[in-house]
C-alpha cells in the first residue's frame, strides 16, 4: 500500500511538474523571437531536470514494487515509449546545447519543440489506451505492435498536448514579465476553450462507446467530487486570468490536473492495468517490498520530496528578462 502511494505521488508530481515544462516546450514553437524564447527557457531551465527525474523514479518503483505491471505495460507500449524517451532525451540536451552554438541553434530548437510534443502526445495516448483497456489475456499483452492505437487514444494525446500547453502558459504567466506574460495571458482562454471542447468530446465518446470506465462512474457517484473540484478550479482560474493575478492560474490549472488524476485513479481502483491486473496481483513479494521500504522508502523518498520543495523555493519569483544568460 505504501508503494502504491509512492508511485501515485511520483506520477502525479511528474505530470504536474514536467507537464508545465513540456507545455512551455510546446509553446516555445509558437514564437520566433529569440528574446521571448530565451525568457521562456529561463522560466523552466532551473527545474526541468528535477522534474523528469520523477519519471525515472516512477519507472523504477514500478519495477521494484509491481514487476508485472512494469513488464506488461512497457512491452505493450514498446514503440511509443521508446519514442517518448528519445523525445525527452533530445529536448533535455537541447536545453544545454542550444546556447553553445549560433548557427546550429535551429536544430536544437526544433529538437526541443518536437521532443516536447512527441513526449506529451504519447503520454496522453497511453492514458487513452489504458482507459479503453489494453487487449490482455492471461496477464499477457496480445495487441500486437499497434494494439494501443485507436482514435480515442489519439484524441487523448491531442488533449494532453492542449492541457500541458495550458499548464505551461500559466507557468509563464507566473514566472515571466512583459511580452511573454502578455502573450501567455492571450493564449490561456483559447487553450482553455480547446481543452474544454476536447473534454466534452472525450466524455461523449466514452459514453457512446460504452467504455467500462463510464460504468464505474455510474457505480461510484462519489467520484463526481473530483470533476466538481475541477469545475470550481476552472472558474477560479478564469477569474484570476481576468483580474491578472499572476500567481493563481497555475495553481488552479494544477488543481484541475489533480482532479483529473484523482478521477482516473479512483475509477481504475483496484486495478493497475484496467481492467485486467489488480494492485494485489501486481505487487512484488513481501521480501522485496520490505527491503525497499526500510531504506529507499522511509528515508530517501521523503528527502527527495523535501529537496524538490527547497529547489522550487530557491527559484521562486519572476525570471528577470534583463539577465543576459541563465
Amino acid at each position, binding site marked *: 500500500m505504501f508503494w502504491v502511494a509512492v508511485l501515485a505521488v511520483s506520477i502525479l508530481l511528474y505530470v504536474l511538474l514536467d507537464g508545465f515544462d513540456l507545455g512551455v516546450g510546446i509553446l516555445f514553437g509558437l514564437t520566433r523571437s529569440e528574446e521571448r524564447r530565451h525568457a521562456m527557457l529561463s522560466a523552466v531551465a532551473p527545474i526541468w531536470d528535477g522534474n523528469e527525474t520523477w519519471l525515472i523514479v516512477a519507472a*523504477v518503483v514500478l*519495477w*521494484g514494487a509491481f514487476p508485472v505491471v512494469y513488464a506488461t505495460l512497457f512491452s505493450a507500449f*514498446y514503440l511509443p515509449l521508446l519514442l517518448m524517451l*528519445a523525445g525527452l532525451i533530445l529536448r533535455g540536451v537541447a*536545453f544545454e546545447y542550444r546556447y553553445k552554438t549560433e548557427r546550429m541553434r535551429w536544430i536544437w530548437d526544433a529538437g526541443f519543440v518536437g521532443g516536447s510534443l512527441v513526449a506529451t502526445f504519447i503520454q496522453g495516448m497511453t492514458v487513452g489506451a489504458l482507459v479503453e483497456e489494453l487487449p490482455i489475456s492471461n496477464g*499477457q499483452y496480445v495487441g*500486437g*505492435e499497434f494494439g494501443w492505437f485507436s482514435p480515442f487514444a489519439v484524441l487523448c494525446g491531442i488533449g494532453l498536448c492542449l492541457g500541458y500547453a495550458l499548464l505551461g502558459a500559466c507557468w509563464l504567466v507566473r514566472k515571466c514579465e512583459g511580452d511573454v506574460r502578455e502573450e501567455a495571458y492571450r493564449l490561456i482562454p483559447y487553450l482553455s476553450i480547446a481543452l474544454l471542447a476536447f473534454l466534452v468530446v472525450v466524455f461523449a465518446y466514452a459514453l457512446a462507446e460504452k467504455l467500462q470506465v463510464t460504468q464505474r462512474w455510474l457505480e461510484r457517484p462519489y467520484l463526481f467530487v473530483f470533476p466538481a473540484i475541477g469545475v470550481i478550479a476552472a472558474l477560479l482560474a478564469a477569474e484570476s486570468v481576468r483580474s491578472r493575478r499572476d500567481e493563481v492560474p497555475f495553481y488552479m490549472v494544477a488543481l484541475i490536473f489533480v482532479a483529473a488524476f484523482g478521477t482516473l485513479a479512483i475509477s481504475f481502483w483496484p486495478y493497475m492495468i484496467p481492467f485486467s491486473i489488480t494492485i494485489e496481483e501486481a505487487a512484488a513479494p513481501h521480501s522485496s517490498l520490505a527491503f525497499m521500504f526500510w531504506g529507499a522508502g522511509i528515508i530517501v523518498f521523503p528527502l527527495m520530496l523535501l529537496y524538490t520543495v527547497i529547489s522550487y523555493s530557491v527559484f521562486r519569483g519572476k525570471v528577470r528578462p534583463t539577465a543576459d544568460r541563465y
Partner: protein
Amino acid sequence: MDLTALLLSRLQFAFTVSFHIIFPSFTIGLAAWLTVLEALHLVTGRPAYRLVFEFWLKVFGVAFGLGVVSGILMAFQFGTNWSVLARMSGPIQGPLLAYETFTAFFLEASFFGILLFGRARVPPWFYLFSTAMVALGTTLSAFWIMANNSWMQVPVGYVMENGAFVPDDWLKILFSPVLWVRFPHMLLASYLTGAFCVAATGAWYLLRREFHTEARIMLKMGLFFAAVLVPVQGLFGHFNGDYVHNYQPAKFAAIEGRWHDQQPAAEVLFAIPDPEAETNHFQIAIPVLGSLIGSMSFTSKEAGLTDFRPQDRPPVIIPFFTFRIMVGCWLIMLLVAWAGSYLIYKERIEQTRLLLWLTFLSFPLPFIAILTGWYTAEVGRQPWTVYGVLRTAEAVTPFLTARAASTSLVVFCVVYSFIFAFGTYYIYRLLRAGPEGRLVLPQPTAIPNRPMSVVDEHHLTPAARRVAAGEYP
C-alpha cells in the same frame, strides 16, 4: 518468437549500455580525484590545486550530464525488450535498481549542488565533505548496478515462486562473494580511467608548453595513482578469473580458448578459434600455465568447451578476443604508468617527449579495457540472461517484432550518436582551452540539477582574478 527481434534487442542493449558505461566510469574516477585534490588544497593551501579542481569540475559536469541522459533509457529497457526477465526477476532486480536511482537522485540533489554553487557559502571542510559525498554517491551507484549484474551472473539468495525469483535472503545477494570481487574490479577500472585521462591531459599541456604548474600536477598525480592502481587491478582481475572459473566454467573455457579437457592445461596466448571445427588455428600457447592460472596448481585438469552441450556454450570468438584486448590495454597502462612514475621521480619526464606522447595517446586505453572487459563478462554469460536459470532467448518480450525492434534501434543509434558527438566535442573544447584563469563562479540562476550549466563560465577580468587569488592564497 522472433529471432531477429531477439538479436536486435541484444544489439540495442549492447549499444545503449556501451554508450552509457563510458560516462559513469569516467565520472566515478573523476569524483575520487576531485576529492583528493580538494583535500590537498585544504592541507597545503596551494592555489594551483584549486585551479585544477575547478577545471576538472567543469569536465565532470558535462560527463555527468551525459551519463544521466544516456542512463534514462536503461530504466525502461528491461520492461520494453526483456519483459519476461523483468517480470521474473523484478522482485530482485527492481529494488536494486530502485536503490540506484534513489541514491543517484539524492547525490545529484544535494551535494553536487554544493560543489557547483556552494564554494562561497559553506566552510571549506564542508565543501571537502560534499566532494567526498559526491564521490561516495557515484561509487554507491556503481555498487547497485554491479549488485544487479552480479546477481544475473551468479544468482543467489532466491527461491522460485509462481515462476518468479523471490528474494529470501538479501544479505546473500548484497554480500555475494562474486559481487565483492566484481565491484572493486569496476571501481578500480573507473579510477584508472580518471587517472589516465588526467595524466594524458597534463601530458598534452606539457607537449604544448602551456599551463606548466597545473599540467605537472595532473601528470604527476595521474601517473602515480595509476602506478599503484594498475597492479592492484591485475590482482582483482585474477580474482574475477577465479569466480568465472568456479561458477561459470563454460565462460572460462571460452575465454581461454580451450576446446578439450587438458591436464595439466596450457595457456593460449594467441589463436584464431574456430567454432565449426572446435579447434584453434595459429595457436601460441604456454604449457602448464593454464592450470596455474585456473587452479593455482601445476597438475590440475581444466575443463574444455566440448564438455558442455552445444546449446549451453557461449560464443567463443568475442570473449576470447575482448579478454585479450583488455589484458593488452592493462599491460600497456602498466608500462606507461611505471615508466612515467620513474621518470617523474628522476625529474626527467619533461625532457622525455616520447613518454609524454605515449601518456597523451594512452587516454583511450582504460575506456577500451572497460568496454572489452564488459563484453567478455556479458557475451561470456550467454546463452543465459540469469546464469544457468533463464536463457536470453526466453527472457525477451515474446511478441516483440523485428520491425519494432529495428525502429527503436535506429532511433537510438541516431539520437545517441548525435548527442555523443556534440558532448565529446564539447569536452574536447574544454580540455583544449585549459585551466588557466577561469574559475567557476556561482551563477545566480544556475542550479545543481543542471550539471552541464556549470560550463557557462565567465572569463575573469584581471581584477577579479586578483580577488580570487587573494581569497584563496
